[in-house]
């Protein structure tokens, strides 16, 4: 028997020690300013929510940064911030977007995504259950994409100074050897491939806001595309350009390539896959699916001789089942994208002007 056990004050101290040694628990029902203070509440939030869900050897020590070895070669790095409204929508949520978006940006560089950082900016009063849902979704998305979240940061701002939650993720990946993917690489004669039906994410967000009273089964296409990209590189290293057409849609991504490569990109309207629900909504709202955001689609520019084989390989992957060729690259007139319309006319497809759909990702 401990000689102090009869001293009530010391026994009390011992009890406190036991409680302090217990794993952190999150009892709060909403985010408060103290969760961003750097003190105990922050510590609890980090340990009980973030570290518990994202757990991996690089993160678990909760040091100021993550330290990891790299193979020889080149690193790719990217960052993106997510402010989508609403936070939860059919087919995904802000957490899943934050992981997939950054994974996709790395994949579009021709890199194999490895590690992500995550920064949360939380509005005071944000429900803790919603934050849990987002974090759990991020953990699932990271696992599905085969990446680990190795470092992070949390800030809380006064009510009204941010809208619920903003997330930033940055990512690093290892560049595949012997590949050269860049918007400047398109050459006349190349084919343009899209990995599936376009416009689903943007239309889902628009419908979900409820301002338009549209009723149909829309679902965001949010997905990590690194697996699909790997399947494409298994066919050939000769993939010239990769883009994930998020904000601004397919039209904007193709314009970026046409301008960077000084070529024309000619798209055949009736070959571009668009789901009937999405097309219907676009017809009603006067929107063009070419300008609507995607979160799980990619565009590829591939030399003509590899195009069919790449499409075949993509169709065997769950995220590329509807992959197809939608156009080709011409030499002139430089820097333009144009569409051969279904009735047999032509029109220029310019970059998006203005903002038809605010805060979609």
């Amino acid at each position: 028997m401990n000689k102090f056990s009869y001293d009530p004050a010391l026994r009390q101290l011992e009890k406190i020690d036991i409680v302090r040694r217990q794993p952190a628990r999150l009892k709060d029902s909403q985010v408060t300013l103290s969760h961003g203070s750097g003190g105990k509440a922050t510590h609890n939030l980090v340990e009980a929510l973030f570290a518990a869900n994202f757990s991996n050897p690089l993160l678990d020590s909760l040091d100021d940064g993550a330290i990891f070895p790299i193979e020889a070669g080149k690193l790719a790095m990217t960052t993106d911030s997510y402010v989508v409204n609403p936070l939860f929508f059919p087919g995904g949520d802000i957490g899943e977007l934050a992981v997939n978006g950054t994974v996709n940006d790395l994949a579009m560089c021709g890199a194999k995504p490895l590690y992500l950082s995550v920064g949360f900016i939380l509005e005071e009063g944000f429900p803790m259950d919603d934050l849990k849902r987002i974090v759990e979704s991020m953990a699932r998305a990271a696992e599905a994409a085969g990446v680990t979240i190795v470092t992070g940061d949390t800030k809380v701002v006064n009510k009204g100074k941010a809208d619920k939650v903003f997330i930033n993720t940055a990512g690093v990946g290892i560049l595949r050897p012997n590949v050269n993917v860049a918007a400047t690489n398109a050459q006349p004669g190349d084919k343009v491939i899209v990995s599936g039906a376009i416009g689903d994410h943007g239309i889902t967000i628009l419908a979900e806001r409820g301002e338009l009273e549209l009723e149909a089964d829309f679902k965001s296409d949010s997905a990590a595309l690194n697996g699909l990209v790997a399947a494409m590189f298994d066919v050939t290293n000769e993939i010239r350009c990769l883009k994930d057409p998020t904000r601004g849609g397919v039209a904007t991504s193709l314009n970026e390539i046409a301008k960077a490569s000084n070529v024309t990109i000619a798209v055949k309207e009736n070959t571009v896959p668009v789901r009937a629900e999405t097309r219907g909504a676009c017809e009603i709202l006067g929107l063009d699916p070419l300008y609507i955001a995607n979160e799980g689609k990619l565009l590829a520019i591939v030399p003509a001789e590899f195009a069919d084989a790449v499409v075949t390989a993509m169709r065997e992957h769950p995220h590329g089942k509807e992959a197809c060729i939608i156009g080709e690259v011409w030499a002139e007139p430089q820097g333009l994208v144009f569409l051969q319309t279904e009735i047999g006319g032509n029109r220029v497809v310019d970059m998006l002007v203005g903002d038809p759909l605010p805060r979609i990702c």
Partner: protein
Amino acid sequence: MKFVDEYRDADIAKNLSAEVQRLSEGRPLKLMEVCGGHTHTIYKYGIEDVLPSNVDLIHGPGCPVCVIPMGRLDDAHAIARQPDVIFTTYGDMMRVPGSQGSLLDAKAEGCDIRFVYSPLDAFKIAKNNPDKRVVFFAIGFETTAPSTALTLLRAKAEGIKNFSVFCNHVMILPSIKALLDSPDLRLDGFIGPGHVSTIIGCEPYRFIAEDYGKPVVVSGFEPLDVIQGVRMIVQQLADGRSEVENQYTRVVPWNGNAKALEIMGRTFALRPFFEWRGLGFITHSALKLSDEFADWDAELIYDVPGLRVADPKSCQCGEVLKGVIKPWECKVFGSACTPETPIGTCMVSSEGACAAYYNYGRFSLAAQRNALRQEQEAVA
């Protein structure tokens, strides 16, 4: 997709175009599509590439955003800057430049400006914000006027007094008449506006056919509607007729919508005259709220400057709206004036001839330039 794809069939388009070619015998024809919706369709689907080259489509004044003069925008700014005002507008109007900048600029400065899809949305905002004063920036031809009228009737029936309308509704017929009387324009026929005609019907266009001897064919907005409309006009010309015909029978009743006209008659009154951007003052060409609805008339409730503001000197929107010049013939087209930084209204709305041409139509110009270059190289 049902009810869409059948109006975009490439083979039917080709056949119709061949008939236009045969009926017109290659004579140069200038046809005006009055409505901005048609301009949009023509460029979006590349209809000029499908029609024979002797048919020249001239873009008319029927783009509601394009015809709003700068002075009215300054009035809108003045209202939006009043305390406790929520100023609501159709999205297109947000980017139109006034002498004080656009409504988007005013929003960035802190004015509460929201874009809505219909006046009823604005009315809902008013009901949900009883401590605010909600103003709806009403623009458009007879197409949108009935929904403004309906909203006013609701506001009156429900006694909602924190809602008002800044009325800029204009009418299509006086502007067509002004064009027909203008000496610098020679037209062979008109593609009549489809949506306006669902309200006013086809009968009111009779003066164009009878007094001015020009065929009018009211047409729909799918590509085949427009091409068939052109074919019907060319048929009239070949037959030596000038009549009003209705291509858009699936939507447009010959006598229009009596109920819509009735509520417009109750809620609106004719203005003695109204300034149209680029076209100047046209008598009896616009609507204001009737005396019965004075309590909902933003022009009476708020102090508006009501000044006439001259268009920027470089802007040739007037000539574009009258079809005197093509969009790319304007001095500032695509250089100082682009959809991102418009100088004139025609570059703002997707129905504006300049924006439609800039966004969709430049390929043919680029192709022409290339062909010229190649010719020059061949000669050299």
